[in-house]
């Protein structure tokens, strides 16, 4: 973690390009130049300890139409979160206040990405994260001990192993708590006093045992509404958060654009040099949109699937198909493989979804194949892979 922070600090100070060394670089590295450019041009009022002002954070996430000047060059800030600008604005203002931010929504609606973007823009780092699981314990949330040191020297500060929450409070940065509702309710509740009083009590350290949060500290939680009822949050904890519901993207055009952008980024990172087919992206965006909404563009009712039909899933289906074509040295992306990948993605939870998917092919895709032809005709031919 410390090494990573040093690297990020160097990027902001010196602006050099870091050779890719990560499978998935954190946001602050991926968009290091944009962050540096915004920081250099940021004249807005900032809450204490914030890396960027709220206005610059907004620009970082929602993009700017006019380029900004940085080191003698015009730098365009790209839009990174699509669908609901007002939601992003509310998130920023929430984090500037006393309350935590809880992002809830269907899986694959970019909640995690939004929390990473917010953390990177506000605190300069998005990696100070607690991953909520059924096995998360209070130690993992608050602090634990280096037992060798503890046994040798007793409970001293050096023996304390800080958790991401501890780090967030001491450094005045955002702590991200992923999938908070996967964590047992009594463990979740250990956040209550931290969020109310902004203080963490470490009784073992006696007089030195109070950690007061530095300005800039806050918590961004994410929760999946499919986990609802697993570990319901207590109302006491709910009161300490402002909730934002992140919905799937409603606009097919936008969804297509996201598929294209995301697949392109991943392809560059993995050195896959194959062109991205916009028609296939559109086909996938329409298919996902219709299966998610349960109605076709022409108003035909479709059985809704129980599987998660998120944009992230669509990106994954496309990227898998693209990788397949690249590594097996095919000339272009194969629709039959796309359908197979779609089938694998859809039929994870329930076999009933296969019937529903077949129904979709036999009604909507068939009609479109007859009326529009082209790629839809080819897509319809691949229905035989739905076995």
């Amino acid at each position, binding site marked *: 973690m410390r090494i990573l922070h040093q690297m990020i600090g160097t990027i902001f100070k010196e602006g050099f390009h870091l050779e890719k060394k990560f499978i998935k670089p954190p946001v602050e590295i991926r968009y290091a130049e944009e962050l540096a450019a915004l920081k250099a041009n940021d004249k807005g009022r900032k809450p204490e300890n914030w890396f960027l002002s709220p206005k610059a954070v907004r620009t970082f996430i929602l993009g700017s139409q006019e380029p900004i000047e940085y080191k003698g060059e015009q730098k365009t800030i790209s839009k990174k979160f699509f669908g609901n600008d007002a939601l992003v604005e509310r998130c*920023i*203002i929430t984090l500037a*206040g006393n309350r935590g931010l809880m992002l809830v929504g269907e899986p694959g609606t970019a909640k995690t990405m939004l929390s990473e973007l917010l953390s990177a823009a506000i605190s300069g780092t998005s990696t100070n994260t607690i991953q909520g699981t059924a096995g998360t314990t209070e130690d993992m949330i608050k602090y634990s001990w280096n037992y060798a040191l503890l046994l040798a020297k007793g409970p001293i500060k050096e023996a304390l192993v800080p958790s991401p929450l501890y780090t967030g409070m001491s450094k005045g940065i955002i702590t991200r708590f992923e999938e908070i509702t996967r964590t047992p309710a009594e463990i979740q509740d250990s956040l209550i006093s931290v969020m109310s009083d902004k203080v963490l009590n470490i009784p073992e350290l006696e007089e030195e045992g109070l950690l007061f949060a530095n300005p800039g500290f806050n918590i961004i939680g994410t929760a999946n509404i499919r986990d609802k009822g697993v570990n319901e949050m207590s109302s006491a904890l709910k009161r300490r958060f402002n909730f934002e519901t992140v919905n799937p993207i409603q606009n097919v055009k936008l969804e297509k654009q996201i598929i294209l952008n995301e697949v392109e980024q991943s392809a560059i990172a993995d050195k896959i040099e194959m062109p991205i087919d916009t028609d296939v992206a559109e086909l996938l965006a329409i298919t996902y949109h219709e299966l998610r909404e349960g109605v076709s563009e022409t108003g035909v009712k479709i059985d809704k699937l129980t599987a998660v039909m998120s944009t992230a899933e669509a990106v994954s289906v496309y990227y898998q198909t693209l990788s397949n074509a690249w590594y097996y040295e095919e000339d272009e992306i194969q629709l039959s493989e796309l359908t197979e990948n779609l089938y694998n993605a859809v039929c994870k939870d329930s076999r009933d979804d296969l019937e529903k998917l077949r129904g979709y092919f036999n009604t909507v895709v068939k009609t479109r194949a007859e009326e529009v032809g082209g790629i839809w005709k080819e897509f319809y031919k691949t229905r035989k892979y739905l076995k």
Partner: protein
Amino acid sequence: MERILQNKKIFKIIPFDYKQPIIYFPIRHHSPACSFHLINVIREYEPDCILVEGPQNANQLIPVLTDEDTILPAAFYYFYKDTDKLVNEEGNDYKCYYPFLNTSPEYNALMEAKKRNIESSFIDLPYGEILLHTAENMGIRTKREIANYNDDSYLSENKIFHALCEKTGLRSFEEFWEKFFEIDALYISSEEFAARMMSYCYLARQNTPKEKMQKDGCLIREQYMASNIREASKKYKRILVVTGGFHTPGLYELLGQEKKIPKIKLHNFSEEIQNVYPMRYSLEAADALNGYAAGMQNPGFYEMVWQGMKNKSPLKEGVSGIYSDAVLDILLKTAKAGNKENVLITMSDISSAVTMYEGLSLLRDKKAPGLYELYDCVQGCFVKGELNAASDIPLRILGKIATGSKIGKLCADAPKTPLLINFEELCVKYKLKRNTILEQKIELDIFSKPHHLEISRFFYQMDFLDADFAKRIKGADIIQNTDRSRIREVWSYSYSIKTDSALIDASAYGGTIKEACGVLSLKNLKNTQKCGEAAKLYAQCFLMGIDVSEEAVRKIEDIIIKDGDFFSISKGIYYFDMLDSLKTLYHIENITAEYFLNKCFQKIIIMLPSMIHVNAEHSQECIKICKMLYHLASKNKTNIEYEPLFEAFQTMILAKDPEPALYGAILGLLYGKDTLYRTKISGVLNGYLSGSEEMYSQGAVFLRGLFSTARDIVLVGDEFIKMINRLIKAFSMENFMEILPELKLAFSYFLPSEIDSIAKKAAALYDKKAEDVKENLELYKDMYTTGLQLEKEICALLGTPQGEQ
């Protein structure tokens, strides 16, 4: 953005100069900012005449609108009856509203004129004339639930502003408008504001095709307004013209030319054809979210802002706080109302919400928080958990509060139709609240309390006039034949703008609501040729407590004689029989229902024999009617006798190729009267059994009809069980599967205990016990509930009451 909206070039094209003899002030309807600057301009310019956009035929109502006792919202209600078919061949009635709120610039212009004792008038074409010059489905002829005279769609649906919204990151035209025209307006001079409006409207006009303006009557209206302005300019030296901003460039262009403006010849419509009335209006109806095309969203919020402007005259004390105060006020009201509805909203939530709306306004470069920041902070801080229909209560409460529930009141001198006066009197008499849009509930014990029966009749009358005032929630439904066993009625009622307008519309039919309903029902009756429809109208009159006139009696009699539709006559019988039996309960004297019932009965007896060849689709309905006639004859009513009916039944069974189900049902009815028909029935069933497979199928259909009227025939002896056994055995598997639904339907008429008895006899034929042949399928609660729900939905789709086949 401010640069675009402060386009100096446009200001040169349409100057705003207090030295000019005519000043054009562009407005958006119901905008507090426009009202605020308009009043400033009037103070500065000191006009000697103010001309306002609005149909000219309402000029005589200006004193009513500006009377100090009139409380807004109020509206002018225009109607035009196209009896001469000038609009189109359909000859429809047209109506529309022109609402005024405290925030309306038009209203404030007229009030200022009154204060200054200067001339003011409307300058637009009368309503009927606008209709005549508008193409179908365009402008004022666009089909909407609530038709309005004014419409801001030119400003809000323009493509240029969609682009501007996208560029500025604002969610909608309304948010764009609020940021740049409502909030910003408080921080700029009136001249700057006029320039900004002018730029905006000029751009909107530039992006609107001339053909569209031509078709929706915009251009001809401007021509008429321009000629009125020119006429006024001959008499007055300082004229202020207040019109929707979209018209300002058009008017300026027309009047800037030295050319003569062609006169538009008006029709000389009588008051019965075209007229206008003042009426109360509600903030709820004036909300853009409720489909009012010229409205601003949540008018209650902007009324509060306007009140702030008036209390805190910006010229003297500065403008800061006007919006923040309104936002905070509504936020606190929302929290209070939320807590009443058991949504826990704490002081911490409120304080967090305040931080949020202030922070958002800064982030969005707004000079003060507005409606959108208010919604955002309630969503972010008051909604706990996922936003869905169960958790969005705070947002719904906010919507209600921000829309407002106020209803206006007209001054004592306002012209009122006799029906409106009668309505008010009756509301007072029955102690009904007539000034609330909140739903009120009342339970009426109609059979034991005469006063309650009167209220019920009043509600039925209002419903008949389509006044959107009262709705029966519970109680017997005589028209649909449901819940007939209920002895109480529960009604909900509340005011809506349709209440007053429906009463104005119905004024032509009488001086009281009851009289109007009587005349209108007779009018409807004259347009009817079906006995069923006439009887339904008769039933409505019964519920409304209206005596049927001699003319109506003659008309119904005539309809019965001329109507040749068997099913329509049968509907008549249903209604007349029911009303005849309910007359004592409903305290209706001198009812002619029995007379009509006899007439219908005589007529249907003549028609009955020919129904034996009815197609299978209608046979079930025919069986139902035959059963109804049979029960009617059993009641021993005067003039309704068994004999003619049985003669008709006997004629029917003699016919060749009868419809099997109906044939079975008629034989069953005859068996009910005379058990000797048992032999005939077994003979017929044997006949079906000795034919081809097609005949076997008809045998199953015959059984369905027979069991619907005489199921006991199976339970006497085992002769019929054996015949049914033969019938079933005769089918091939394929044909059996085909006929199975028919057989299932046939046996559905039996009670569970009867099924047990049949099973026993059937089992005995094969030396088995009843338990061996009976399939005891357990019916789960979920299955039953799903079945009921399915039936309900199918009935709703088919439009038939539940329980009917």
